[in-house]
Every structure is written in structure tokens, then in C-alpha cells.
């Protein structure tokens, strides 16, 4: 960005203060954004009776994802902006649109709404991709034999990983074990069939409503060099057990809050809670986690940066937003504690 553009940008922000520029742009066209990420739905298909598969074109701020990661997608239902985590199913080497598949859960408020109502042209809120359910190593230098276990909607990040490996011409064995109700309950049947034709890729189905048993040792004679598991909690528990017994690494996707990596190197500084009068050495985790470890229990909710329950004032110091990577050090700023990590000395009004 040229100096002039940057200057013009700050003039625009200064004349629209105190409201964010996006608060103006969204009233004209939600796909024209200043800092926020949105996506327009470009195609929708309902391949099975419970699923909806759709593609989304993100705004320019979106910086891509790594296979297996998830994005927090939001949509408005009955006046309320609801947010859920979904994993793009495409290869991360393919640029452009993101592909998602959502399974309408019996109790799923948002998934049911999307299955019934999502249409081309709808604009969704997006976030940067997050999550550690990713391939270790680099293209061409991945673990040799990779085992992927999925249940139901867990197929999406697994598919992303497989498609990515195919783009990288991965030669080691890629074995997919997928649990679903029956053969009709699989929105990616065709894609998986095509992938299974590769010499080194195998796809095995277990149909739980047609007598198939839930995950057990008999399904996994070969655990591979690394395992990936994404699906319902019991499936994950069993997978964790089997892999830890064998001492093989297993990566699991539970759509939990993003794990903090201490920003660029070791965590330094002190985290001070000004109202409680206490302080702790910064260990790089989110301020909410560190506050709770120190015995303070501020109000919190989703712990993922969605609900604003944990918002508190950063009196001084610099913090990083775990979701976006942005740092800020303006004094007396409201920050969401669950997605902010201290950089150096920080004071929070708690």
C-alpha cells in the first residue's frame, strides 16, 4: 500500500470516527469492506436430505487457509447474528471460492436454517482461518502414510486434506475411513469415488445404520505415520485411545477455540490486573485463560470472540488478536479477553 493510500485511509477513518468505516460500507454493499471479511454465496446444492453444499467468494481481506482449518461463518437468523465453525472442503492450493458442506443437525438451529434457506447471493460473515487440524511439514515433505477418520460432517476438513495432498502429488498411502448413516447420507460420494481411483488413495465406508459398527480397533489395522480424526465425540475418544496406545500422532478437530501460539517467539512481560491488584508472568495464552489461572473469573461466554461477554478494558500495553493476528497498543481500549494475548507488559482493568 502506497504512502498516499495509507494517508487517505487514515483520513477516511478520522472523518468517520467514532464509527468504523465498515459501519458505513455495509449499508451500501456488504461485500465492499474496509477491514471485515465477508463472503457471497455463489452456488448452493442440496445433495442429500440433511446437507447443503455451497461455495462462497470471500472479500479481499481473506488470506487463504490451510487444509483442515476452520472458518467462523456467521449469518443472521431472526434478527440475531449466529456464528458457527465450518471447514472449507477444497484443496488449499486452489485459489478463489471456498466450498463448505453443512449437515443439518436435529437440534442444529443454524445448520437447519442454512439447509432450508441458504440461497445464491446471500452474504455471510467470515473470519481468518484457524485451527491446528493441519498437515505437518511442507508440500513434498509430508508424513508418508496418512490415515484420516471422519464421521458425518467431519468429512469436510478430511476432504480438504486429501484434495490438497493430491495437488501436491503426494505418493504415500492416504487412507480414508468414513462413518455415515448409509450410502445416501454422503454428500461427497462422487468426489470420494473419484479420489479412490488414485493408486495410493483408499476410501472405506462404515454405514452405521446398516449394521456397521462404531469405530473400533478392527477398523484400523494400520494407523499410518499420522492420523487425523474429525467427527462426533465418541469417535474422537476412541481414535485418541487407539492412537495413544500405539504411540502414533493423532490430530483431532473438535472445533474448539483457537490455540494460541505465543506471538513471534517467547512470551515476555507481566500481565497485571489493575482492579484485583494482582499480576502474573505472561505465558502467551489468551488473557481470559491467564486470568482464570490466576484465580480471577471474569464473565465469559463463547470463548471464541463471538459474544463479547468477556470484553474488558486494556489500560496499557500491547495485545494481539489471536483470530486476526493484529496487534494494538492504544490505551484504554475494549478488547475481548478470550481472543487477545499479551505482547510484553499489559494492564487489564479486572
Amino acid at each position: 500500500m502506497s504512502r498516499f493510500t495509507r494517508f487517505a485511509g487514515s483520513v477516511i477513518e478520522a472523518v468517520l470516527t467514532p464509527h468504523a468505516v465498515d459501519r458505513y460500507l455495509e449499508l451500501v454493499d456488504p461485500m465492499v469492506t474496509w477491514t471485515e471479511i465477508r463472503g457471497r454465496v455463489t452456488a448452493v446444492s442440496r445433495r442429500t436430505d440433511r446437507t447443503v453444499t455451497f461455495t462462497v467468494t470471500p472479500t479481499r481481506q481473506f488470506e487463504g487457509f490451510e487444509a483442515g482449518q476452520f472458518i467462523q461463518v456467521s449469518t443472521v437468523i431472526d434478527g440475531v447474528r449466529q456464528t458457527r465453525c465450518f471447514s472449507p472442503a477444497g484443496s488449499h492450493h486452489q485459489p478463489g471460492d471456498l466450498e463448505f458442506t453443512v449437515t443439518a443437525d436435529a437440534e442444529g438451529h443454524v445448520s437447519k436454517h442454512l439447509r432450508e434457506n441458504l440461497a445464491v447471493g446471500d452474504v455471510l460473515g467470515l473470519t481468518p482461518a484457524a485451527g491446528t487440524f493441519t498437515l505437518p511439514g511442507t508440500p513434498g515433505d509430508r508424513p508418508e502414510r496418512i490415515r484420516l477418520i471422519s464421521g458425518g460432517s467431519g468429512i469436510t476438513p478430511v476432504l480438504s486434506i486429501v484434495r490438497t495432498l493430491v495437488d501436491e502429488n503426494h505418493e504415500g498411502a492416504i487412507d480414508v475411513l468414513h462413518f455415515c448413516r448409509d450410502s445416501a447420507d454422503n454428500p461427497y460420494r462422487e468426489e470420494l469415488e473419484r479420489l479412490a481411483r488414485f493408486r495410493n488413495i483408499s476410501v472405506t465406508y462404515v454405514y452405521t445404520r446398516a449394521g456397521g459398527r462404531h469405530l473400533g480397533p478392527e477398523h484400523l489395522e494400520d494407523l499410518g505415520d499420522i492420523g487425523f480424526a474429525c467427527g462426533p465425540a465418541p469417535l474422537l475418544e476412541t481414535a485418541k485411545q487407539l492412537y495413544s496406545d500405539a504411540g502414533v500422532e493423532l490430530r483431532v478437530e473438535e472445533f474448539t477455540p483457537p490455540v494460541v501460539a505465543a506471538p513471534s517467539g517467547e512470551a515476555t512481560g507481566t500481565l497485571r490486573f489493575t482492579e484485583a491488584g494482582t499480576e502474573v508472568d505472561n505465558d502467551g495464552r489468551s488473557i481470559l485463560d491467564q486470568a482464570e489461572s490466576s484465580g480471577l473469573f471474569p464473565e465469559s461466554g463463547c470463548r471464541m470472540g463471538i459474544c463479547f461477554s468477556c470484553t474488558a478494558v486494556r489500560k496499557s500495553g500491547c495485545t494481539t488478536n489471536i483470530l486476526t493476528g493484529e496487534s494494538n497498543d492504544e490505551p484504554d481500549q475494549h478488547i475481548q479477553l478470550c481472543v487477545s494475548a499479551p505482547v510484553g507488559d499489559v494492564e487489564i482493568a479486572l
Partner: protein
Amino acid sequence: MTEHITLTAEQVEAIGERFDAIRTRVLNDLGEKDREYIYKIVRAQRGFEIAGRAMMYLPPLWPVAVGSLGVSKILDNMEIGHNVMHGQYDWMREPGLNSREFEWDTVCPADQWKHSHNYLHHTFTNVLDMDRDIGYGILRMAPEQKWHPYYLGNLAYASALMVLFQWGVMLHDLEAERIIKGERKWGDIKELVAGMRKKAGKQVLKDYVIFPALTGPLFPLTFLGNMSANLIRNLWTFSIIFCGHFPSGVQTFTKEETADETRGEWYVRQMLGSANIDGGRLFHIMSGNLSFQIEHHLFPDIPANRYPEIAAEVRATCEEFGLPYNTGSLRAQLGSTWKKIAKLSLPNRWTKQEPDLAVTIERARHEDAASKALAKAGWQRAAEREMVSV
């Protein structure tokens, strides 16, 4: 002649239950309709703002520009800002309309205002020596406030406050009268002042430096235009806000009267301590629905667009229990307020002090700590919802 009204403890609790039912019903009904409403108002506000700023480039349109910008500032301040910061739209989970994130187009920092308003004013409404909105620390607005020759200037101070209202609101949380008395020190207010400097700095830069500069040779005209727009907003917001609690007939309360309040007693105090203004739909929107001050004080966190429909029920409840429902035209309420400001500039014995109305509330006495705690829980939760911790 003073009119006397008495309420029994049972009646107070019945009123409490009635209002709780209204609250639950409306909160459960919030949805797309309310979202559309607030976004419509936001859209209008932005439209007036951009139009106003743009028209400053055309000197013949200067009065229209000022009017447009004034309307935008009023909407941002009242129907949008005040209501959003009460948490009325938090349920929508939109960061732009969330009470914890929102900042408004005036020099007062949002978090300081939320402290003095949501917490202090709404919890201790009209309780003498607790609600600092009674007089803002510089005026005498209740006969119970001890008279002093300083108050001879009551009308002048009120006029000055009105003209510079956004600055008065900004300085409100400082509690200047306590600083003067020596009760509050620099250490207590250092952070508040830093916050004010930052917020006011950005606002002043925007209205009085950047925008005038962007119109080049028209700098002085735009400077004056923006100042006038701010003045319009000051005059309007002051008038609406002062009509909320100062027309005659509105009750004040003592700390003793309100100690250990039950939920029902809290509701009744909010109702008797507030006054409405009559008007059409556009007037209500421009006043941020503070023309429904009574309903706002009963249900501060219910989206204000719901107040008109709630008002019918509140009014009916008042009639049923023989309670006054203080409402009048803007002219009448405003006139009554300025009359009070004038009257209270003089010692009580020099003027007729008979109140129009005296309401006695039979207070339920709770025998044991348990039932006392139970009675307290409900209203405390309602009040605490309005507290946004800073």
C-alpha cells in the same frame, strides 16, 4: 392543594408482577422486526450525516447542511447511541451495535457515560444524594437540595449547560462538585481525563479541523456549520433529557425510603420519578424514544422502538392503581422544567413549595434475611443488567 396517593405493599408487588410479565413477553418477542428497525434508523442517520457533510461544499445550502448534520448527530446520540449503549440491541450480536463496543458522535467517551448513566442514574434514579443527574452537580433541581446564594445563577448555569451540553455530559463523570470540595483527587480522575482528551480530541479534529480543511477556502463556513450542528444537537438533547425527570409532579426519593428496595418498589420509583412527552411518531424517534421516559426507566434494556406499545399497558396499570402518569406536550413539560429551574434559584421560603403530588408507598418489611435476599434479587438483577462494568 397537594394530592395524596397511597399504595399498599400488596399493590406494589402486584405492579411488580405486572411489569415483569410485560418485560418477559417483549424480550421473548424480539427478532427480525427490531433488527430492521434499528438498521433503518442507522441508515437514515448515515444518510443525513453524509448529505450534511457534502452540502457544506455548497454555501447556498449551508442552512440545509447544518440541519442535516444536526439531525444526524441527534439520531446518533439518542435513538441509536443511548439505546445501543443500554444494551438494547446486544441480543443481535452485531459488533457495530453492541453496548460494549459502541462509541457515539459526541465528545463524551462511551464507557464514562455508561458508568454515570447506566449504573448511577438508572440504579439510583431520583434518589437525592445518589442520582447525580439531579442537577448535574451544578444546578438546584429539587427543593430538598440545600439552597445557597450560588444558586441565584440557576437559570444562567442551566442555559450554559444547554448550549455546551455535550461538554457538560463529558465532564459529568468527573463529579466536579466533589473535586471542588476536595473529596476527589487528581489520582481518582487521571484516567477519566485521559479518556476525555482522547475522545474529545478525535471529535474536535473531525468537526473543527479535517472537515473544514477538506472544504478548502470554505473553512470558516464549514467550521461554523459543524459548530452549529453540534449546538442543535446540544439544545435538543438537553431539552428532551431535562423533560425526563424535572417537570412538576415527578417524585424524588430519599436514601432511607429506598433502602433494600423490592422489585415492585423499584418499578414504582422508576415510574413516579419519570415523565413522558406527547408527540407523533417522528417526534418519538427524534427524541430517541426518551419521550417514553417512564417506559424507558421501567425497561431500560428493551429496544426503545417497543416503548410505544408498552406504554398503553403501563398507562392502564397506572389508572388501575390510581397512580399518576406524568405526560404532556413538549411545550408544557419544557415550560414546567424551566419554571422549576427559576423557582429553585431562590430559597424555599421565598416561593410556594407545595408539591402538586405526594405518593406514600407502604414498604414491605421483610422479617428474615432469606426473604429479604429473595426480594432483593429480582430488582438487583434488573438494575445490574444496566450496569456495564468499566
